């Protein structure tokens, strides 16, 4: 039987560094995307483990952040596509979410709620563009769509959010 070359894996130090730099943002992104804390924790841990396994496939053509975000988004999508998804208690545990810091304004919760209420394709675009601050080109590659489609989705997401966040969208 043929021998198989094991892919180059990251060292423990690489993974610890990546988790330190990107763990918080990815966990929050996965939470907003999946709307479930337990699944978000699974998704982000899976992300870093996959990054460890396939570090050799990261050729530096994108930033490490973009690469990890790509893995995280695809992991989240895989979770949403599982046939058992419909039967799992997916109640958004906003009430059980760790309390935010004291300088949180009531409007902040409104913003979070509005984003979480977006349809998946708009939610992913908003998260990748505004929260992860990626370019439209990077988003297009992650989502497997044309850059122009990214722009269309962002525009429509803004229109949907605008109607809910009217008071914060326009200045007085």
């Amino acid at each position, binding site marked *: 039987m043929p021998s198989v070359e094991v892919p180059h894996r990251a060292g423990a130090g690489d993974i610890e560094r990546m988790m330190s730099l990107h763990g918080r943002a990815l966990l929050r992104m996965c939470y907003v995307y999946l709307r479930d804390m337990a699944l978000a924790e699974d998704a982000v841990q899976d992300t870093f483990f996959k990054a460890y396994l396939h570090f050799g496939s990261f050729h530096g053509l994108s930033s490490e952040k973009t690469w990890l975000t790509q893995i995280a988004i695809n992991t989240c999508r895989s979770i949403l596509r599982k046939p058992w998804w419909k039967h799992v208690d997916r109640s958004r545990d906003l009430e059980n979410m760790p309390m935010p810091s004291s300088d949180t304004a009531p409007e902040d919760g409104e913003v979070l709620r509005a984003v979480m209420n977006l349809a998946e394709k708009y939610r992913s675009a908003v998260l990748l563009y505004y*929260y992860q601050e990626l370019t439209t080109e990077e988003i297009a590659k992650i989502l497997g769509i044309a850059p122009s489609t990214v722009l269309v989705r962002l525009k429509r997401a803004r229109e949907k959010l605008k109607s809910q966040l009217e008071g914060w969208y326009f200045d007085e």
Partner: protein
Amino acid sequence: MNRKLKDAMDRSLSGIDFDARLSDGVMRRVETAEGEAGIMKRKIAVSLAAAIVLVLILAAGAVAAVYLGGTMGVVWFGNPVRWAEEEPIPTSAQTQEMTSEDWKLVEGLFSGKPKDEIWDIDYDSGNGVMQGVGETDVGLNDLKKRIREAGLPLLVPDPPAGFAFKSSRLSFFIDEQALGNVTYLGTETPYEGMTLRRIRTGEDIKRNIDSFNIRFEDANGNQISVTAQFNNTQGTHGFGAREDDIYEPVSVPGMEKALYIKRTGIDEALYLIQTGFEPIQYVGANDIDADYRWGDNSQIYDAVLYDINSETAQKDVLLSVANNLK
């Protein structure tokens, strides 16, 4: 919309952190895999299933999205629907990369916008953002007086028992009368690929309340949000919902339709649509230019959409607010 969105989300999510528990979990899997890697190097065969998984992971960036099939929602009569995925609008326009740097520029521009001006920013790619004329913290009695004097059909809520007025925000539309005091200031190119259209409005625009948002709050900080927005009955009216949300049509006097939705773990909301008033003609700011004449591309409001929601207040309280709209 700009970095404010990220900052607001981060503040709400500030209690969520990638802590030692999660990182330890990853490292345990890494250590286990390290042990298995040694075994793999001594083995010759790789199972077909593992090879498929490996290929899929490596090709993750190239795999196009496969959705379950549409967006879940519910329409006015409480029937769940799944809207078909919309085809992206093909465009021949040159795609301009929208970066967060672009939005920082927009934010910087808007910070200098005069309060009586509408600014409409468009990119060559067709993307755009507008900031209009608004007003905040208008009291309930003042709001009711202004609506009555303007002859608008908007209905204003009173705070339910235990709640008090906290804040309000208004926006305005341009009708024929207000158009008389509107001045098109022209276009500028503040940055390459960005066009800024400026429109100055007169004070009388504040007679034409386009929408309002009112917040009530009780002694414990629980809030109820009430938004009224002029609308058009020809538009698609449906609301996002998941399959395990609770939704039912309800009856509210004076409203053509009313729908209650409980989004598990998020909030409870009551949507109302009011019709039966004389349609209101208006012009969108993005249609105004130097040659604009009243009637060109003017649009019509023939409905008011109300959104009453709260993260804490329940259906009976929301209904009491709806039943007291006047």
